[in-house]
């Protein structure tokens, strides 16, 4: 009996082993198929973008596009001379050359397809050009709480984070931020694509050269100048309206499991300072985004607390702040000055931060700005006067 049981057990074991080995082989086969990627797919991934809208790098024809674009030439073009990355600020024809941290990039002709690896840059691009020229968007671009181009992005070609997908799109120029992974940039450069890495600033006016640079690269000088003038006019209204006297100490905090304050060199901190406040976190020695506790907030003792995070979490966090006995004596709590602010204006680095500044001055100095109506920026809706209407 025990002998039979032993034989049966051995047979069962052998069957189990075979099943296990076959299972492992199946997994290995699937892994090999996945790695093989495009080689075995019937359609290349490049077909994600309609063929007629994709401009392969090889099709650039400098000779055909070298003539200057007369429509873009105007009196304010001299402002492009202040952009250090533009190699020849008198050249508004093609090819044109820029030098960013990735080295010299020659753009042979007006880019038909532009790709951006950052949300902030894409927001700027959306203001300067037809969104259809953008080769693709990423999933977080459609998040309405973070993105100022959620509506535009929703119906657009969406890709994942694999650089291979970008290569397949064959964009004429790629714009990366200083936060873009260096390996990604190297891979794209290695694939023969032109990648320009531009650094956006935490200051509305500090971003002007970057906007001009982006406009220059994509052949949207007139649109870039129009956007810059809009930013400068809005900032002038803010500056003129700021009252004299003591500046309020403003703390920007968000809670993601733990609590984080925005100190110096942060987008939120830049907005606070440009809106006439003192960044209380920076004032307390915090640099960048650092973790703080409720006790830290009591120690910083701000006059105003801003919570730039999605509304659902913000409401819970604000409730926690307002009911914490440890914060009862903090001026912001005592005076009910704890505010949710729209995160897409405060955390994504682009010209939309000016809307954050406008929102904040209305919050900090309501009487000084009671008769001012601030409006959202417009995205590209057609060629600006002097533009080429591409």
């Amino acid at each position, binding site marked *: 009996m025990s002998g039979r049981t032993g034989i049966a057990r051995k047979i069962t074991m052998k069957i189990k082993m075979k099943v296990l080995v076959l299972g492992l082989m199946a997994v290995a086969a699937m892994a090999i198929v996945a790695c093989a990627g495009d080689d075995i797919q019937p359609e290349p991934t490049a077909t994600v973008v309609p063929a007629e809208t994709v401009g392969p790098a090889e099709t650039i024809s400098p000779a055909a596009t070298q003539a200057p674009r007369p429509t873009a030439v105007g009196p304010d073009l001299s402002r492009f001379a202040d952009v250090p990355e533009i190699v020849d600020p008198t050249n508004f024809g093609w090819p044109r050359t820029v030098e960013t941290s990735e080295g010299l990039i020659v753009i042979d002709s007006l880019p038909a397809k532009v790709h951006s690896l950052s949300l902030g840059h894409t927001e700027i691009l959306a203001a300067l050009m037809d969104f259809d020229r953008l080769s693709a968007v990423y*999933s*977080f671009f459609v*998040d309405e709480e*973070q993105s100022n181009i959620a509506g535009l992005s929703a119906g657009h070609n969406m890709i994942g984070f694999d650089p291979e997908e970008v290569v397949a799109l064959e964009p004429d120029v790629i714009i990366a931020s200083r936060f873009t992974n260096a390996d990604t940039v190297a891979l794209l450069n290695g694939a023969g694509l032109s990648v320009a890495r531009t650094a956006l600033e935490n200051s509305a006016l500090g971003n002007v050269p970057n906007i001009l640079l982006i406009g220059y690269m994509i052949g949207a000088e007139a649109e870039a100048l129009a956007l810059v003038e809009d930013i400068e006019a809005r900032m002038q209204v803010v500056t003129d309206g700021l009252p004299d006297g003591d500046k309020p100490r403003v703390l920007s905090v968000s809670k*993601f*499991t*733990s*609590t984080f*304050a925005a*100190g110096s060199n942060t987008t939120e901190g830049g907005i606070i300072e440009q809106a006439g406040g003192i960044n209380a976190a920076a004032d*307390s*020695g*915090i640099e960048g985004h*650092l*973790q*703080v*506790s*409720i*006790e*830290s907030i*009591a*120690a*910083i003792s701000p006059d105003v607390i801003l919570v730039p*995070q*999605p509304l*659902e*979490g913000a409401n*819970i966090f604000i409730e926690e702040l307002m009911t*914490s*006995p*440890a914060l*009862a*004596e903090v001026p912001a709590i005592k005076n009910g000055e704890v505010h949710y602010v729209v995160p897409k204006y405060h955390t994504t680095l682009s010209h939309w931060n000016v809307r954050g500044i406008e929102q904040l001055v209305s919050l900090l100095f309501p009487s000084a700005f009671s008769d001012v109506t601030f409006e959202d920026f417009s995205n590209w809706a057609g060629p600006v006067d002097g533009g080429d209407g591409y």
Partner: protein
Amino acid sequence: MAPVFGDSATGVPSGLAGPPSGSVLKRLGGGALLLGTATIVMFVVASAVGPFNIPISHTASTLLDLIGIGESTAEPTEQAIIQSIRLPRVFMAFLVGAALGISGGIMQGLFRNSMADPGIIGVSSGGATGAVIAIASGASAVSTLFLPLFAFVGSGIAMAVVFLIASVGGRFSMATLLLGGIAVGSFLGAITTAIIVLTDDLYVQRQIIFWIAGGVDTARWESVRIAAPIIVAGGLISVFVARDLNLLLVSEDEARSLGVRVTLVRNTLLVSASLITGAAVAFSGIIAFVGLIVPHVVRLVVGADHRVLLPLSALAGGLFLLIADTAARIVLSPAELRVGILTALIGAPFFIYLLVRNRSRASML
């Protein structure tokens, strides 16, 4: 896994199998007195320091007031900070450190390897996966208790799966338990990473990453009240069977011949250590190296008798994490570091030191 304790750990002298001798009680009493005193001092220090400046006299009077001696001289805000922010955090840091210390001691004993840690059988990975699911699904936003609950359940499921793997065929195998734990841990780690990578919501990603980094900064009395009974009960049960663990280290056959119910003792210890670890992970995330280095250091000082080693590892672990968390709170004040980063910064060099020392010893043999 080859034993690396050396003779003092694996070859348990006969004195470790009987009732506690005078020497054992002396080591236990001396160690407990020393660590207990240091812990009490550290409790006071940790309650007294922080970004908000509170005079030490106000802290002292508030603490005495809490135990029914005198009346607090602190301002209401100071009292609120001490009572509702610092004290729950101080207790939670001690509890989590104690949990990791004792469960690390148990795992190192059961696996006869000083490189074993509380998460070696996949419990920490299970907790992390549970917590990540709670955050990604939005359950953690519904109630503050859901995140630790999911993490604890995740730890429990991981433990159960690894036990099942180790018991396949009706025979329990420690080697299979270890390998199964590593496999399940890797599998769950992959799930956790997949959730992080695949979620579109950057805020969710941030929440997950900061939770995994480990910390006790969100501790509240409510969480202390939930974690404490599990950790204390599991710790007491483990200490209760510590003598049998000593015998198991000699050999299972010898332990059986001395009347030890090997399977029951081993499973009790494994379940206790897993529950303790699960409770710690649920409320603190993954805090590295405490469960690895604390029992090892204690063993170097007091020897391998688990009747002494386990309770002192609990005290030392609690004290270590309390010191680390206090440092994490004040080193960048008013900002703070995550305590998990600090323990790893201290623990990693020590771990390397252990590796190098073991290799040096081996080469001398």
